[in-house]
Structures are given as C-alpha cells and as structure tokens.
C-alpha cells in the first residue's frame, strides 16, 4: 500500500515480491496473473473490497456475498474474487443483480464495474435501481474512459480531456456521479480515490451494512489509456496528485463536486449521503400481504 507523503521514486525502490497476496484466500489464485496493467487502480479497489468482505465475514458469511460485474477492465473483477461471481453483459450487471437479490434477499450483492459500463450503456438501469431502492451495492471504478477497448471517450470523461475518440478534446461534460446517484435515490453515496484505501474499505463495509441501494465511486488511475494523454503520468504519479488535490468534505454540496481531472483542480471526496428509505423488498412484503388478504377475502 502507498505510504502517504513518499515520492514515487522512493516507492519504486521498495519493490517487494511476495509469494502470496494477503487476500489470497479470497482470490481465485488459479486465475492469476490478472489482465490489469501496471499502475492500474482497479487492483486497489478490489483489495479494499476483499478486506471489507473479510471484516464483514462474522456478520455476512462469504457464501452469502456475491459480486456481479458488467464488461470492461473493471468488469473482470468478478472473475478474480473467490465468492459466487457473475460476469454478465456490458451495462447489465445492475438488472442482473436486481433479479438475483429479489429471488434471494439473503444475498449481499455488490455490483463492481466501470464508468462506461454503469453510466453509458447501463445508465438507465442505474437510475432505476436507485429509484427502486433495490438492496444492492454498486462500486464504480471511475477511470474516466473505456479502458478495455483502448481508451475511448465515455460518460465521465471530463470536458476537453483527450481520449482516442476525442483526440482534440472532449466536447461534452462528464457526469458528476455522486450527484446523479443521490438524485436517483441511493441511500448511501461516497466517493474515494485509490489513495484512500482505508476510507474506501470502510465505506464498502458500511455499504454492506446498509439496507438499500448504495453507491461508491472510486477514482482510479488508468495510466495506459487516460493518465498519459492527459498529463497525469503513471499510476503512482496520479496517486501523488490525488494526495495533493483531494479534499475530504462529507458535507459537500453534491452539485459542486464535478471533476475536471486537470492538474490544477481539486477532487472532493467523502461519505456524502447516508439516509434510510424503505427498500423494494420492504415494500413488496406489504404488497404480498395485500394480495393474500384480497385473495382470502374473496
């Protein structure tokens, strides 16, 4: 893990080759090596998730934990985690997870996917699942581009950012995801970066304990496709920049926390929203009661 305040040069010297990853038990070891690039932020997000799984295990046994992904570099997460794991189609992890959850409410389901998957092709599902307050957790690794397909512009790519399909700069504005999630009805909304490992892990842990639709945005480096053309450098360089530019503000006005990812900008992070609202299944229990009462009344 990154030590706060160290330079990337110093970190490079501390190369450690370990026999086993501390989370091996929760990884499908026979599937390693993984496909992710050096410096990619997805691994940090996965490790935070794995730690949260472990910490939650006394309350939520691993058999009841399920991870569902769409398609993309982040979409591959489902393939490496050694719990019941479903790798679905591009954009459709949320409706798939909705079916899973409704059919077996005992499951603790986390959708782990990318910004393009969840907010372009899958955007409609996101807002509707939040509105319904389906009891699932959504973790979005936001790397501001379509990593897997070669770094094209996506729904969170900031204005004027360079990607392979916005070679002169992105003419559109990107989504402000926490604002979108809160407006759509999520009961817990957080944003952290891959630098904030513990905060991220704790946010995931909290999401497990929440009833209802939770959303965590993880700002992550994609050095291969986004970092380089946008002067954010390698993965570690981008993490160092997070260190300088992140402001923790749990009370932030969500309207104002859109991201430009320009070197001179700030990234507001925090656990922004934490409310209670009846879930889809809470309400459905009531519907079942009514239907049965009507049936026996006849």
């Amino acid at each position, binding site marked *: 893990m990154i030590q706060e305040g160290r330079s990337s040069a110093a970190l490079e010297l501390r190369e450690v080759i370990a026999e086993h990853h501390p989370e091996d038990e929760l990884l499908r070891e026979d599937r390693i090596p993984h496909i992710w690039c050096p410096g990619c932020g997805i691994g940090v997000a996965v490790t935070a998730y794995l730690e949260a799984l472990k910490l939650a295990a006394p309350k939520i046994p691993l058999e009841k934990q399920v991870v569902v992904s769409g398609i993309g570099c982040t979409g591959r997460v489902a*393939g490496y985690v050694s719990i019941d794991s*479903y790798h679905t189609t591009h954009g459709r992890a949320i409706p798939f997870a909705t*079916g899973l959850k409704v059919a*077996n409410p005992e499951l603790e389901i986390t959708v782990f996917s990318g910004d393009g998957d969840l907010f372009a092709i899958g955007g409609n599902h996101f807002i509707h699942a939040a509105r319904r307050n389906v009891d699932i957790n959504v973790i979005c690794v936001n790397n501001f581009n379509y990593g897997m397909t070669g770094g094209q512009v996506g729904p969170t790519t900031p204005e004027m950012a360079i990607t392979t399909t916005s070679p002169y700069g992105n003419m559109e504005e990107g989504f402000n995801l926490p604002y979108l999630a809160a407006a759509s009805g999520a009961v817990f909304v957080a944003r952290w970066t891959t630098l904030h490992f513990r905060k991220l892990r704790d946010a995931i842990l909290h999401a497990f304990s929440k009833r209802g639709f939770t959303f965590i945005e993880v700002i992550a480096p994609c050095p291969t496709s986004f970092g380089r053309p946008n002067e954010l450098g390698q993965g570690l360089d981008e993490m160092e920049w997070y260190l300088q530019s992140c402001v923790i503000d749990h009370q932030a006005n969500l309207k104002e926390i859109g991201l430009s990812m320009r070197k001179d900008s700030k990234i507001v992070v925090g656990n922004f929203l934490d409310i209670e609202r009846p879930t889809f299944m809470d309400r459905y229990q009531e519907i079942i009661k009514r239907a049965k009462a009507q049936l026996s009344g006849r």
Partner: protein
Amino acid sequence: MGMNLIAKAEVEREAILAGTHFLSGDDACAEGAIAAGCRFFAGYPITPSSEIAERMARRLPQVGGVYLQMEDEIASMAAIIGASCAGAKAMTATSGPGFSLMQENIGLAFMTETPCVVVNVQRGGPSTGMPTLIGQADMMQVRFGSHGDYAVIAYAPASPQEMFDYTIKAFNMAERFRTPTFVMSDELIGHMLERVVIDPDKIKIINRKRPRVEPGERFWPFEPEADLVPPMALAGEGYRIHVTGLTHDERGYPAATEPEVQERMLERMLRKILDHREEIIEYEEVELEDAEIVLVAYGSTARAAMRALRLARERGLKVGMLRLITCWPFPDKKVAELRDAKIIVAEVNAGQMAREVERHARKPVYKVNRLGGEPIHPDEILRKIEEVAQR
C-alpha cells in the same frame, strides 16, 4: 426477511388455478407459468403481450412471487437470468420490439446455461409495425436473433389451452436442459378467449439438476453429466462459482483466447439440445396417411389450415396437415418423410418456416403468406390447395 423465490421441489397446489376456465391465451400463459413454479416475472409492457404482465402482477404476490416492471426489455431479460441464477423459475413476456432488445442477454442465458422462459406474442413487424395485430415473423429471429451459434427450444401454441400447457413445457425443458426456452405465440392466440382445463394432477414438473457434492468439495459448474447437462449451483450455496458470458471452461473460468475450449464447450451446448431432439420435438399429424397434399402450419395459422383441410376433404381432396408445435429444434425427420407429397406452408410472414421445410423436404414448397396485420383465411389456403391439386 425469510422470503425467497427459490423453486421448491413441488409446486404448491393452492397456487394452481385448478378447474375449467374461460381464458385468453395471454392469461393462460401466466397461469401456466405459475403452475410450473414460476415465481419471478420481469417485464416491460408491450402489446399484445401486456396481459401476461398484468396477470402476473396480480397473481404473483398472491402466491408469494415477485412481479418486477423493469425500465426496458434489456433489463427484464437480465433480471430473469439473475433470478434464475439465485434459483427462481423466471419468465418475461414481450413482442417484436422488446424481443429485439432482449437478444443480447438471451445470448448470455445460452452461454451461461441459465434456465428461463421468454414469451413472444408476435405482432406485425419490422420495427413498431402493427402493435395490435397478428404477425408470425419472428420465427427466424428466435432461432438466430442473438449473435453466435446456439440451439433453440421454441414452441408455437395454437390455443389458450396450449398457451397454458406449453408454457409449463417451456419451463420444464428450460430446467431439464439448462437453457432459455421460448413460447412463440401470436396476437390471435394471445387475445383469443377459449376454454382452458387445468388439472393439477396432470401437471408434470421438471426441476434443474443440482450439484451432487457438498460445497467445498471439488465442483465444476460447467462439467456436464452423461446427458451433457451440468448440474447447476445457485448463488449463495457456498460453491463459490464463477459464471461468465465469455467463452469458459468446465470450471467456469474465462478461456476467451482458447479455440479448443470454444469448440469443446460450444459443441456440447449445441449437442445437449440437438442430441435430445426426439425427446423435445412435438407436432400434430392430421390425416397424413393418404395425403397427397400436406399443409404445414403453426400457431393461429394452423387453425385456419385445419379448417381448410376439412373443406378440402369434403371436396374429396386428399389433404393432411403437419402442425408444428416445436418449431425449434425443427422436426427435420418428420418433414423429410413428407417429400412425396405436395407441401403447402401457410404462415403470417414472407416465408420463414417455409424455407426450413424446403431445406428438409429437399424440394420447393407452395406458400400461403400474409405479411402481418390479418390472419390467413381458411379460404385462401383452400384456394391454394385446389390450385396445387390441379398441378
């Protein structure tokens, strides 16, 4: 909590609408699903299938099930696959435009071998076409609509009673072979009201095979048994399975760059259906023994063909009929046997199943077609019979 929708070994008797009823095809379909143990329906309204959703919305909560109206048909299809992975028997119902939207996730259901049922009450197409009027033009879409190779089980019911019976059958075959199955109805059958007899004693239910080892023991979720169908572990049982739409090996692990795995797994997935053709295929033979002219029809059009057959027989013409009940897998052997007769295929499309009949009869057939919006009248078929009899 406590409540879940995981299919039980037996369907609760009180859930089944026993007795003799006057039902529309759409309503009968919904009742068939419930009698088969379906406890999850995800859908999006579309004419002429909406009555199925409406009845499921009313009936499912009564039997402890869940009706979920999704944001579109893409989500509906994804949701029923998810529900099935958790152990529910799950269904969606739609018509042309929605069926088009479902195609990608139908492929996911094939690839992940997830049982579920998709009902298409066909209307006139393409595009928005004729929302309230009959079509039978999705018969090739159901066979080839999603990308890649796969083998399909699809039924074409010809009455509300068959909507009930073959929705149950579709669930049974889905569970038996771990595959999505299809009920390819049409507007006329969906909206037609007829007597439907429901006798719970006569309903046979098949449930998917379950793992034969305990969680923690070696279990590969896509390792087939002798019938080529792998037992299915559900989410939350502790088998820690991985399920992906990528080409995968028997462990369920992606093998997207290994052509030999693609060959092995896909061939098995095709064969698990095609090797069991005889078990799956159903058709009705009407007066074929002496027939010099054979009508081939399915769905509502078969009813018109039946009437034409009667009228032709009254006129002394030796006419028989092969009514397709299973359109896919196609009854290739049976059709090949008809080669000596003159064949007339009647359908509300530009000649979709006719092509398949020609392929297996290995000769050109005569066709009676309408492009949608109106059913084929028995007189049109009769005229064709008389014309063909002259040749």
